[in-house]
């Protein structure tokens, strides 16, 4: 019975519905009497609202109109704190902030009505860059425009500068990035005073939406129900924002007494919803002539946008990952996330780490140049090993094989042979080739004591018919939750995946398993599912209804007999924090994550120096993620993440004008197409993690961390351009190559 389901590429559970078009996403649902909802947004980045006028030519009496005054509970989107309003009341703090909501049965008329709503403002000066925010020319949040700051200290950096052979400094920047799930945000709500509020929608975290609606409507928890519909991609973009659109749809539903559907079109989705935080990182590094790191001083700043939302947590992950998988004795990381008058930046796969890892891995290539050794040697001489300490003071107890991962990645990519060949060929060609890599780690699960606070639960039940149900708040959004949970439960129970059913996340049925984020679903919630499934098996064995070596038929038979004698067959398992993991929130020291994934990614590029066009020609991704539960799904996660990383590195350029994204269309915000991706070659080292389900660790965010710096290092190798910013658009690279402004 061992290992019958794990390590097998079981086809996606909901795959048949997806390939036939039968899967129902929120916009595919229609309710009787349903009307459409729409949002009227601020045209100013910052200002005082003087009045709202409803222009002529629209039959306003047919419309449901909602403003901040219609909110029954507190006007906020409850998340970490309650600073973000659901609807702007007296002030607007970013472009596209929601001010008025409209609903009507005719969506064509609704669009005309939107244009007839005129909001008058007294404009106030805005803050649009990290520097302007830090200079305190305008205070737009709290006392100092800083949402959160951290200080992480290991050893004493001050002691190292004088003994350094080289001190290497550098500043690095990353731009905003749009999640660009292909299914735009959407929600349907039904609400009335007796039943409360129910929403159906495209979302990652049903209990985040639940918490926000409870606060917004001032309702008891049991009067709010959140149901996840099939979700067409999230990548973090459907982590916090769905609470906003759910609130809007529900307010319209309550006032109109009818079900209300709100679906964003692409332009609205791109302009109004969250993006990856823009960042600026400064490095100062002391290193010996042998390439040994003596001290790393890192200053990391994120642009958080207008409200706090999840920024402190994004900053936390970015900060902890900023010093990478290296054993430097002296490290000082100081970080902060600041307010600007842009829509709040938010969760996006990687969650702060892609920003700080880009800076570090680009910087280490520059350290190698300064010392006069190869990029691989500078890393090899500093890689962290088992028993050594990360910047936050965490002693790494798992086996770490960064050397082996790097050797394997360099061999698979033909790195050394290509370096030699390109050195010979490049001088004779207008097309310069380069190869570069990045080495990195990614912590799985919530940071520090986060999992302890979440105290997630999962429930497994077996029906008298012998069907096993997994009930969890974890959502499927393409990454494979349904299939992975089925494999874990099936393995624990000695059954086939067909016998396992994953119930649709619905807060009236499933327990709170925490949000579907942070590479935590397989490792943390999967472990709860495994434990619960094993408890079901134990119940049947202990009851004498099953004997080890049972068949699927025996299992069904036992499930039929069990309830009559013992009651419902179910197991609810709650997360237990391992006693040997300690975290000190005040000092920001301790075991930041229960486990890390480790990786080395190699990118090969060609750069046409006449046009500054970059192509990624080959990509090798080698990682250690514990036991791989489903090879096709796991490889799919990496390949998709690498493609998003290629976009982050080269194409995806959010153009800002006074806090507003002005290229909010797929026509001019460019993501990789089928013509842009190289062969993405994915390899796993498998070191089973003792605490993961069947030995698995987290995987989802990992590929976003290392892809962009690998590409940037390859471009620098090809052209000698000292890349410091991403995206490296053609225009920017041409400026670097030609020394002219395009």
């Amino acid at each position, binding site marked *: 019975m061992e290992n019958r389901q794990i390590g097998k590429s079981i086809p*996606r559970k*909901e795959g048949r519905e997806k390939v036939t*078009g039968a899967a129902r996403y929120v916009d595919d649902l229609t309710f009787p009497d349903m009307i459409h909802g729409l949002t009227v947004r601020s045209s100013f980045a910052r200002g005082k609202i003087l009045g709202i006028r409803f222009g002529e030519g629209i039959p306003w009496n047919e419309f449901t109109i909602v403003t901040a005054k219609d909110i029954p509970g507190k006007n906020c989107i409850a998340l970490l704190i309650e600073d973000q309003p659901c609807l702007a009341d007296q002030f607007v703090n970013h472009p596209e902030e929601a001010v008025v909501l409209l609903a009507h049965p005719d969506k064509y008329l609704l669009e005309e009505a939107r244009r007839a709503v005129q909001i008058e403002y007294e404009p106030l000066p805005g803050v649009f860059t990290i520097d302007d925010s830090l200079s305190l020319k305008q205070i737009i949040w709290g006392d100092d425009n800083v949402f959160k700051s951290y200080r992480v200290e290991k050893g004493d950096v001050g002691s190292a500068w004088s003994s350094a052979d080289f001190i290497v400094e550098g500043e690095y920047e990353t731009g905003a990035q749009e999640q660009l799930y292909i299914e735009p945000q959407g929600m349907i709500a039904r609400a009335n005073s007796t039943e409360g509020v129910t929403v159906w929608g495209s979302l990652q975290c049903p209990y985040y939406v639940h918490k926000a609606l409870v606060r917004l409507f001032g309702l008891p928890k049991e009067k709010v129900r959140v149901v996840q519909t099939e979700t067409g991609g999230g990548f973090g973009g459907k982590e916090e924002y769905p609470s906003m659109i759910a609130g809007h749809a529900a307010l319209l539903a309550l006032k109109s007494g009818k079900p209300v559907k709100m679906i964003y079109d692409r332009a609205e989705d791109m302009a109004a919803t969250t993006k990856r935080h823009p960042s600026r990182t400064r490095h100062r590094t002391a290193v010996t002539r042998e390439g040994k790191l003596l001290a790393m001083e890192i200053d990391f700043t994120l642009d958080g946008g207008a409200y706090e939302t999840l920024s402190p947590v994004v900053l936390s992950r970015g900060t902890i990952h900023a010093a990478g998988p290296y054993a430097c004795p002296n490290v000082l990381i100081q970080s902060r996330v600041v307010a600007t008058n842009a829509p709040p930046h938010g969760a996006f796969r990687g969650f702060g780490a892609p920003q700080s890892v880009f800076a570090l891995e680009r910087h280490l290539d520059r350290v190698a140049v300064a010392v006069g050794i190869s990029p691989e040697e500078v890393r090899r001489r500093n890689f962290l090993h088992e028993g050594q300490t990360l910047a936050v003071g965490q002693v790494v107890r798992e086996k770490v094989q960064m050397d082996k991962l790097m050797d394997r990645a360099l061999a698979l990519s033909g790195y050394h042979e290509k370096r030699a060949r390109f050195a010979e060929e490049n001088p004779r060609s207008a097309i310069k080739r380069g190869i570069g890599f990045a080495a990195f780690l990614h912590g799985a699960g919530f940071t520090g004591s986060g999992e302890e606070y979440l105290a997630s639960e999962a429930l497994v039940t077996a029906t008298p018919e012998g069907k096993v149900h997994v009930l969890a708040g974890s959502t499927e959004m393409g990454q494979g939750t349904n299939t992975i949970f089925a494999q874990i439960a099936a393995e624990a129970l000695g059954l086939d995946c067909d016998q396992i059913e994953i119930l649709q996340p619905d807060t009236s049925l499933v327990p709170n398993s925490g949000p579907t984020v942070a590479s935590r679903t397989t490792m943390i919630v999967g472990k709860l599912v495994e434990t619960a499934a094993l408890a079901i098996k134990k119940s049947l064995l202990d009851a004498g209804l099953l004997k080890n070596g049972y068949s699927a038929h025996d299992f069904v038979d036992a499930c039929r007999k069990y309830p009559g004698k013992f009651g419902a067959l179910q197991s609810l398992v709650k997360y237990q924090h391992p006693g040997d993991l300690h975290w000190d929130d005040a000092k920001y020291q301790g075991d930041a994550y229960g486990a890390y994934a480790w990786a080395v990614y190699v990118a090969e590029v060609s750069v046409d120096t006449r046009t500054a066009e970059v192509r990624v020609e080959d990509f090798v991704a080698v990682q250690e993620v514990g036991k791989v539960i489903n090879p*096709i799904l796991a490889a799919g996660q990496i390949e998709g993440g690498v493609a998003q990383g290629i976009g982050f590195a080269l194409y995806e350029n959010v153009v800002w004008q006074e806090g507003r994204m002005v290229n909010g269309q797929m026509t001019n915000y460019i993501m990789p197409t089928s013509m842009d991706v190289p062969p993405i070659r994915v390899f796993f080292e498998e070191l089973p993690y003792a605490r993961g389900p069947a030995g698995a660790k987290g995987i989802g965010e990992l590929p976003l961390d290392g892809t962009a710096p690998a590409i940037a290092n390859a471009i620098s190798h090809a052209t000698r351009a000292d890349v410091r910013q991403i995206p490296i658009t053609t225009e920017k690279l041409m400026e670097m190559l030609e020394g002219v402004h395009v």
Partner: protein
Amino acid sequence: MSEAARKIRVQCEINGKAVSLETHSMARLLDVLREQAGLTGTKEGCGEGECGACSIEMDGALVNSCLIPALQADGAKIRTIEGVADADVLSALQKSFLGHGGAQCGICTPGMILAARNLLSRNAQPTENEVREALSGNLCRCTGYTKIFESVLEACRTQRAHP
């Protein structure tokens, strides 16, 4: 303008069935398929012809249904994702997308399968480069396309083996 004046009637053949549908004069073919014909397998990703989630076949050509005014579909033969499987039997492409990780979140999948199907109807043995070109109007944010290429090429292999 009165309600009645804003309505038009479109007669066409969808997935082999003749239909006559009333819709708004400003409606796009995508709206008619989803709202009047109830065929919600065709998705809207961008509404501007960039993402290909709304790809369908119209008179044998692959089109973005978000860019086609409903009126223009009058008299046309249309195939959507709902018309790809033979009753309950999946097509070779659908099977290979399912078996080779070609679908993740699934929102681009109907359009992607229609685009691949259109390619294979013209070229039964495409190279990977030809697959890349044929799918370049269909964006996928989940897969990095690798498993989609594998799915399409695998479907060609099985079709060759079991025509």
